[in-house]
Structure formats: structure tokens, C-alpha cells
């Protein structure tokens, strides 16, 4: 299977969690599927979440990027120890006077940022239209884009580097070297020895039609072994490591 592989990084990132909307904004630790599709949509020039009425259109079922790209399958490897990026809460004021209804009109924003995040990303065409896939591959390989891709906030440009087409083979090993989705019992994961680590995060896997709410899944990154019976589907290897697509 041909796959497009690249490194995605930046000096900071913030993929906002929608479940906290007061005092502090938190970020997910890793780029999730919806955010990655949005980033690729920007590269292709697809439109994102926007006010459809303003553009004289009916509200679509999905934003254009999701409509077009959701059949794409991805695999994500966090390039950091144990899959965990350092984070810091940054503070700034929005004092234009429009941002807060409180006296004085000052909005204090506290926002958690990932620092120096880096991921190795694999893309798999799956059912994506040939024309779109070819355009996506050529844009990424040649370093071109229509809108500038960013990591959650438009002042965090995304660095896309080391782009290659690679050949991957179906595989069924018990060790998975990328993030994967797993709903089962965490105690079933074993091995790893004293250096065992298990990173777990519930993060978006898709969008709910019409309302653009996230659908969630449990992302795992671990050096434990996964019992054969509960191995996720779509495992591929490059001869050295094994990656899970979702």
C-alpha cells in the first residue's frame, strides 16, 4: 500500500478542547483526526467552518474539508518521549472592549499551548477520490498550499517537512508504534517492563452531521503489547515499525 508520510511540527500548537469554555482553554495533546483533515483542507483550499448564509448557501451537512476528506485514513506518531508534549498556560488580555461584558470590557484569556510539538503523519488514500488524492500528494510533496496550514491557531504555522511516498505492508504485530483507538480494558495491555508507558486521551475522531459536534474516541500511545483478540484493524508496517490507521 502506498502511503504519504511527512513530519508535522511547529513551535507551539493549541487544539482546543470544546468541553471547557471558561477561565482556561485546554488543548489536546495530539493533533486529532478532524484537526488534521482541516489542515489538509487548507492545503487544498477547501472551506472550513463558516457562516453558510453569509455566502448565500444552505447550511451544509459537513464543512467542505470534512465532506471531501473524511474518507482519508491517517496514522499519527507523536515524536516525543512517551507521547507527551510539554504544555504551558499562556495568558493574554483582550482589552478592545468588545470581548467581555464585564465592567471595563477586558477579557483575560488563559490558554494552554503545546510546546514544540512534532508528529510523523501517514496518509492512506482509502476511498478518497483519485483526483483529490493526487492533488493532495503533489501539493504536500512540492510544499504548496492555497491557505496556510496552522496548528490550531493561525499564529502557529504548521511546518510540513520530510515528505515521502512510502510503501507499507499489512501487518498483525502486538506492538503498535503509533496512536491507535482502543475502547477495551487497559489492563489487558501488558509488557513494556519497567519502562512501560501508557498514554491515554479521549479526543475527537469525527464530526456529527449537521451540527459539527465532535465524536470522540480513546486514543492510546504505549509500548505495551496488545492482545491479538483486541488488535485494532488497519495495521501496517514499513519493515521496522507498525502503524495503526483510523
Amino acid at each position, binding site marked *: 500500500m502506498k502511503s504519504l508520510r511527512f513530519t508535522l511540527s511547529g513551535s507551539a500548537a493549541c487544539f482546543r478542547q470544546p468541553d471547557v469554555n471558561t477561565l482556561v482553554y485546554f488543548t489536546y495533546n495530539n493533533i486529532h483526526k478532524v484537526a488534521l483533515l482541516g489542515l489538509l483542507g487548507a492545503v487544498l483550499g477547501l472551506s472550513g467552518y*463558516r457562516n453558510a448564509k*453569509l455566502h448565500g448557501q444552505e447550511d451544509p451537512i459537513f464543512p467542505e474539508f470534512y465532506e471531501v476528506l473524511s474518507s482519508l485514513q491517517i496514522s499519527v506518531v507523536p515524536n516525543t518521549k512517551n507521547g507527551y508534549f510539554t504544555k504551558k498556560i499562556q*495568558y*493574554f488580555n483582550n482589552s478592545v472592549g*468588545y470581548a467581555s461584558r464585564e465592567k471595563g470590557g477586558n477579557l483575560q484569556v488563559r490558554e494552554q499551548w503545546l510546546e514544540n510539538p512534532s508528529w510523523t503523519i501517514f496518509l492512506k488514500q482509502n476511498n478518497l477520490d483519485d483526483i483529490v488524492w493526487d492533488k493532495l500528494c503533489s501539493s504536500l510533496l512540492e*510544499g*504548496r498550499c*492555497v491557505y*496556510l496550514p496552522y496548528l490550531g491557531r493561525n*499564529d502557529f504555522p504548521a511546518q510540513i517537512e520530510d515528505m515521502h511516498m512510502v510503501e507499507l505492508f499489512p501487518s498483525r504485530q502486538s506492538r503498535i508504534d503509533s496512536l491507535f483507538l482502543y475502547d477495551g480494558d487497559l489492563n489487558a495491555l501488558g509488557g513494556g517492563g519497567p519502562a512501560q508507558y501508557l498514554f491515554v486521551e479521549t479526543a475527537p475522531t469525527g464530526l456529527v452531521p449537521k451540527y459539527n459536534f465532535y465524536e470522540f474516541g480513546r486514543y492510546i500511545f504505549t509500548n505495551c503489547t496488545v492482545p491479538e483478540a483486541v488488535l485494532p484493524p488497519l495495521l501496517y508496517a514499513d519493515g521496522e515499525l507498525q502503524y495503526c490507521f483510523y
Partner: protein
Amino acid sequence: MQKTNRVYGILAVGAYMANFNADLSGYPKTTTDSHIFGSDKALKYPMKRMWLMQGDPILYIKSMQSMKNKEEGEKIQPRDLNERYTELFGNLDEKTSSKEVLGKLFSAIDVMNFGATFAEKKQNISITGAVQINQGRNLFEDTHVLTQEILSPFRNSNEKSEGKLASTMGTKIVTDEAHYVYSFSVNPANYNDFIGLADGFEGYTVEAYEKFKWAARVATTAFNTNSKSGCENELALFIEMKEDSQLYLANLDRYVTVRKKEDRILFDLSKLANFLAPRQEEIQFVELYCNPVTVDVEYGSLNCSVYSIY
């Protein structure tokens, strides 16, 4: 005149005995590994102030008005978005068409360059700005943060305080020398969706870009508040891409280093030159503006015209 080609570049700000951008504690903003940085907002604010002084309409800036209130009497307070919009562009109510509002928004020079989020009176408008500025990292290694005690002219009004007979102390926090390097991009394609939607709007313009370019060169120097009075624009690099180029360059500040060379400050752009060399055919021309009195530049193989920043 419409501007359609992309621009990438670098903006450098020096801070001498000044605090270019503080966080809630009053210290310069830092990452977890104590690297100092400044936000895009810290750089945009002096630009907006400069445009405002020159008489251009600026929407997203604090403006005050005097309001009468039964309990508190007459007090000044900031305008809200609706009030500011009305002050600049006239009436806004539920029946105002989005076309009209969009057209008016784009007539403000800050919106034309940096974009807007406008949610007021049944309008729900989000414009990603053509100009995007990143976080600016302090690339100078020998930066020290200094805390100075300053005396207040007033006595402590708290009667229970031990120091109630003396005037109070405060602190002022500065960096002795820091050099913030920002990377920016200008992508006129961000507005393509709005052409024809907004009254009288034909996309990003050369005039708006020239105003940004001028502000990017001098606005920080011109801006003199207490904490920013030692901050000045030191270097500005503009890489004009060819008309149809869709080349993507991210975070050019990665390829810049800053160090001292005797009593002058040296910006080393040779890595940047190496990075740009294989992409030369996508580039129309490169312009570099710097302060010729204080700044030296190591160009490497960079092919650019050089001007004074003022």
C-alpha cells in the same frame, strides 16, 4: 489596486531596558524552558495605534466614551463592538445586510490586514486576515530580566498597614537587551471568498499592504509607552513571491540567529539564504530594511535590496 501575490518575511524588534510583552505576573512571557517570546498582539497593537494616529479607521482597538449611570454618576468606559462600529460606520441594527457590514468592515485598515471576528446584531462574520504574524521569539542568548523597585508618590491608604505613614513601593520589570524575531505571511487568497459578497470589496489591496509594510518598519519605534519606550524596529525582511506561486514557507525565524558583534547587533541570515536558494524561481524580489546605525546583517548568499528602516 488589488494585491494577489504572497509575501513572507521577518520582523525583528529590539527591547533595551524595556518590557515588550509581559504576562500576568509582569515578567516577560516565556515558554516552559524559560525562552522569552512576544505575542502577535504585542506587535500588531503599535501598528494599529500608528494607523489610528494617521486618521485611518481602526475597528479593533480600545476607545472610550463617557456614560451616565444612576448609581455611579458619569464615568468613562470602553465602547462595545456595536458602539465602536456605529461610531466609525453609522447605524447597525438587525436589518442591516451582511453585505453592507462586510464592506464596512473591510474599509477598516486593521480588518483589511489582520481580519476580524464580528458577532453583533445577528451578524456572524469571521474573516481570516491576509496578514498573519507568529509568536516572536527572543533569539538573543544573553538576555537578563531585571526587577527595579520604584517609589509611588502616594501613601498607603490602608490604615491597618505598617507602612501607612510612608508612600508605597512598586516594581518595574524589564529585559536589559532582547531581540524578538517574528515570522509573518501575507496571503491575499484568504479573501477570495468575500469578493463579490462585500459591498465595494475587490480583495486585498496594494494600498493596505503598503500601510502594513510601513507600520511593520516603524510602528514599534514610534510607540512610546512606559514599558515599550526602549523597544524599536531593527530589521524587516519582505520576500515577495511571484504572482501565481503557492509555495508555503513556515516559521522563517528558525533560520535567523542574533548575536553581538562588538557594540552592534548582528542578524545572521545566511541559513535563511540557504533555505531560500532552491526556491529562488518562485521569488520575485527580496527587500531588507534595517537600522544602519545599530544593526549589521550577515547576508550569506541572500540576494536582496537593502534600505534604511526609517
